[in-house]
């Protein structure tokens, strides 16, 4: 069988979908062990921290009960964690150990297709993890419909943002253990100092600029605005920050990873 028209390569959209589809198939292959934890984790968190610790916290936080305050924060941290793991440890293993990309790059895909498809997949995972948290929060009556239904979209943005950041970091990593620094030194602290567990307003003034600089702060603020359907100018800044972050770090992640995949 010969190709009468040689130039029949799949267009960009289908190439990206192909990469996304690969990740989706691998993820859903073990649907039970991969799909259940996103629901169990917020449950555990709400029970342990929310109910247990929350019983002692009677003060409202930014006008929300502690359970609601923490719960809405979890909508984006779940997305952050899954996308960060996927695009750091996951990417490094595919790149260096399993050599998955070597095989894929022999198919009609460019490095850009591969990385952008992967970022979109991480965003999708963010959306799904956010949705899982939303389900739990709704079942326990912590947040209210219908506005909260939009929250997974912020989960998508969060996933995408942490995907590009993690890819950028991974592009520097030579040994997989170096990624521990990224999680202990950056992701974990951010969980505590971005207004997820407590409001940042009362932190010392010299920490405030730092809080405003780190990415998660903007996701948390945005998702709470979405859940409350109460927007202000600052949320436009948050959205702008997220989009600009994705574009800038995405650009450099692509540039650096291309050099590692095509040499």
């Amino acid at each position, binding site marked *: 069988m010969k190709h009468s028209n040689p130039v029949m390569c799949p267009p960009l959209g289908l190439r990206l979908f*192909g990469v996304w589809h690969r990740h989706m198939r691998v993820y859903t292959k073990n649907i039970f062990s991969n799909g259940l934890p996103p629901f169990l984790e917020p449950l555990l968190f709400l029970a342990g921290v929310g109910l247990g610790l929350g019983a002692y916290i009677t003060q409202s936080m930014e006008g929300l009960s502690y359970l609601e305050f923490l719960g809405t924060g979890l909508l984006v941290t779940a997305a952050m964690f899954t996308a960060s793991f996927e695009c750091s440890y996951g990417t490094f293993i595919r790149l260096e150990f399993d050599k998955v990309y070597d095989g894929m790059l022999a198919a009609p895909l460019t490095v850009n297709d591969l990385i952008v498809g992967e970022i979109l997949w991480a965003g999708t995972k963010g959306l799904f993890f956010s949705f899982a948290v939303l389900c739990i929060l709704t079942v326990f009556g912590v947040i209210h419909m219908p506005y909260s239904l939009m929250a997974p979209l912020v989960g998508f943005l969060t996933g995408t943002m942490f995907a590009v950041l993690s890819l950028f970091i991974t592009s520097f990593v030579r040994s997989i253990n170096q990624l521990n620094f990224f999680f202990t030194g950056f992701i974990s602290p951010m969980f505590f100092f971005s207004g997820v567990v407590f409001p940042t307003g009362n932190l010392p003034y010299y920490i405030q600029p730092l809080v405003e600089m780190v990415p998660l702060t903007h996701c948390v603020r945005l998702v709470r605005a979405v859940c409350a359907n109460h927007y202000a100018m600052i949320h436009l800044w948050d959205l702008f920050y997220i989009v600009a972050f994705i574009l800038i770090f995405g650009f450099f992640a692509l540039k650096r990873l291309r050099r590692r995949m095509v040499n």
Partner: protein
Amino acid sequence: MANVADKIITVENVSKTFPKVVAVNNLSFEVEAQTCFGCLGPNGAGKSTMMKIIYGKCTRDEKPAGRMSIFGYDPKDHELEIKYLSGVVPQDNNLDDELNVIENLMIYSKFYNMPAGLARERIAYLLDFLELAEKINSRIAELSGGMKRRLVIARALLNNPRLLILDEPTTGLDPQVRHLIWDKLRLLKKEGTTILLTTHYMEEAFQICDTVMIMHNGQRIIEGPPRDLLAQHIEKYVLEVPDAGALQDKFNDRMPDSVRIERAQQGIRLFSNHYDCLKMLAGSMEIENYYLRQTNLEDVFLKATGRGLNETQ
């Protein structure tokens, strides 16, 4: 539609420099349609790098740029077209361990934008062709090395490639599987596929290649049909004596001019076109102390690339 004399691959004056080593050094070669072109050379000779440059996994040096044409496309600007028309079997079996056999192939069928029904048909045909049909639902971990290799070949054949690029397709496989793969490659060639492969096995090159190029330090040393290489670059026979001591006294006084001597650490090899001459030199030695045989491609290879190891091997 390709004619037999068409050049599928043209490489002219291509170089590739890595920070510490020149992997490909001003290399030129051509591959005709429906032939099998074999690239031989010691580890580090630049074979794999050359393959990767062809399908865009490596970029060649910008200066001098040289010229490359694969189906008329330059990989620098048209990697997608080249990849779409080619199938690649990389050196490592990079299969998805989490997925089973058919899922591995279905994922790749998406990369070629094949409709699911057509993909299933094609996969069933290819698994049958490579004698993997009963493994269709097996996990990758359950496959033997030979099966994994055949599965990677099946994956490379998904889109009916006109050019099949194989980087050491049979390294580490048992003789049965090697012969099976050779048979399949011959069949594919008959059906019109052009094959480009690298190998360390002289036997493999002799069995399936129409043209062989021996590379060393990124350069072409010799090139030609395997039989011509034998005829032009090496004597017909070799007398191998693993322990040179046994022969020492004999050729001190009278070594015929027609005999070429190659000394190794322990042993010695005497090459000549005259069987009787070598037979005579073997003389009264015990039969287990020497081996008198026809020369093969491995002898040409070792003559061309030297017997010592370099730092990249």
